[in-house]
């Protein structure tokens, strides 16, 4: 893959974010093209989540720039960036627990269609949105729990719901923060497969944070290793994971 001939979709230029003494992002730069799938690995506290949050706007950088298709978006709010196609799923549980699975995904379909202020329309008459929602639930194998409350479902379900909801935004680039953390072995592969199928089918760019190095090898042939807010290695997982400095930060520090 590594579509280097493709135009750059999203570019980070020397992004910096310090929390006091902690260098969560230390002048990191990255370019990613449409259809390009990168994995991001690193020990806990390496700065992976911070980097993704900088891209979505949930964290404001101390300095540096972010561009989408060449346009500067550094100052834009998360909701504006989401509309432009930068969508993230969460490492920790961030779901609308009191909603049904159907409503959870439908919320994002409505948002993507810009129907925020539609107050006087009965939601059941939004046939196009409701159809889209049903389709997404099918794609992510959620149709059977469509009417369950999200809070009553297991952790694995919530991860898939988060991912399906992100796809409802019709993203250009998907940022996926540890989609399988806290999920059992078997479920893990199922979730990854559902997600990767959709990423490929829609030719999306993606940055996936993942701890399971075997899984990382399957996901993409391009991985980045992060350590103390910096990218210390980049390349094919097979090559990168053999390098001494990578072994030291991933294994030597109780990865």
């Amino acid at each position, binding site marked *: 893959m590594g579509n280097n001939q493709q135009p750059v979709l999203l570019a980070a230029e020397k992004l910096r974010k310090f929390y006091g003494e902690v260098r969560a992002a230390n002048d990191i730069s990255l370019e990613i093209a449409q259809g390009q799938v990168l994995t991001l690995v690193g020990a806990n506290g390496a700065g992976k989540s911070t980097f993704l949050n900088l891209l979505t706007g949930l964290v404001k950088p101390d300095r540096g720039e972010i561009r989408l298709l060449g346009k500067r978006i550094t100052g834009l709010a*998360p*909701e504006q960036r989401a509309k432009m196609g930068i969508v993230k799923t969460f490492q920790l549980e961030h779901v*609308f627990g009191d909603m049904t699975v159907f409503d959870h995904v*439908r*919320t994002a379909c409505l948002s993507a269609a810009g129907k925020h202020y539609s*107050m006087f329309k009965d*939601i059941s008459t939004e046939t196009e949105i*409701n159809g889209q929602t049903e389709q997404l639930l099918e794609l992510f194998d959620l149709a059977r729990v469509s009417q369950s409350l999200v809070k009553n479902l297991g952790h694995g379900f919530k991860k898939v719901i988060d991912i399906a909801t992100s796809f409802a935004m019709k993203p250009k680039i998907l940022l996926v923060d540890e989609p399988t953390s806290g999920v059992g072995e078997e479920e893990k592969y199922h979730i990854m497969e559902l997600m990767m199928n959709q990423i490929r089918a829609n030719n999306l760019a993606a940055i996936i944070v993942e701890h399971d190095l075997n899984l990382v090898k399957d996901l993409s042939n391009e991985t980045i290793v992060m350590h103390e807010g910096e990218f210390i290695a980049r390349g094919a997982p097979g090559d990168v994971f053999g390098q001494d400095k990578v072994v030291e930060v991933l294994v030597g520090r109780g990865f």
Partner: protein
Amino acid sequence: MGANTRTGRMMPSYIDDRLIATIVLTAIAAVIPLFVSEYVRTLIQRCLLWIPPTFGVYIIYSLLRQVHFAQSIFIGLGSYIAAFLAGKYFVTSELLILLPLSLIVSIGVAYVLGIFIMRRTGFYFAIMGIAVTMAFWSLVYKMRQITGGSDGISDIKNPSLFGIQLGDQGLYYVSLVVSLGLILLMRRILHSPFSLQLRAISGDLQKAESIGIPVNGMRRLAFIVAGANAGVAGVLLAFSYNYVGPTTFAWEFGAHFVQAAIIGGVNYFVGPIVGAFVFVGLEFLVSTWFPNLWEVVIGVIVAVIVVTVGEEGVTGIVKDLFGRTLKRANLEERTYSDGK
């Protein structure tokens, strides 16, 4: 997932239990003035007019999980608009002017206040609501020349509609129609795309932002919807009481709508309606027998409800008592729609 009644039940769609219940209750409210004393009619009229502002509190709580103490500002605005234009500086008493005017003023004021009040949540939202209300109160209190200060403005004659002077009975029916219209409108709004996204905001703020929901703008609009309800009711309340005073702006007055919403039960769409009737009814009964104690009594009732049934309120208690009958009548509609 209890309320999936629409899709789950085999029933011809044109027979809607809820519609029947609405028609029956409306019919009762429509004929009741013919059978009761003037005093009771006025009391029912006040109950009806308490419903819209209570719905405002209910919307802000059930969708955004915030406690809205500032409804008295909008009741006050509506009431003083009526008192100035139809009373003190007699300009017009035409409801077709007063009601839209109050609506517009309420929307405008809610828009401006919402810019900063709706930036806060939880404790700070509640406190800011109270603080802003107190500012309005003291302004009205001090601008004696215009507002009559603590004396207020009394002797507000009945309004007219389409140029026809309304009697007390006419005012009752106008109150009924306005209240019913706003209830139906609120029901529509609660089942709209707008409301679903508000629930996302209170469900998980970060997730809501990350799927492109304009959090601040939508919160502000919810505040406007709540305020507009109170503003419209305020006009009719002024005529109903024949008097407007600065206490209309008092934060304790705003707190009454929070109490009414709690008493009714914020888990149910009919909660604000039940709450308005129970609150105003209790206020009347208790203040007749123990004039100095009624706020204490209401306070105790609210405390007992919060501790025992919480968000279920009186509606929940009644539902438990008459569970089967109500289930058949399909009145147990929850705040949130499930599925389609």
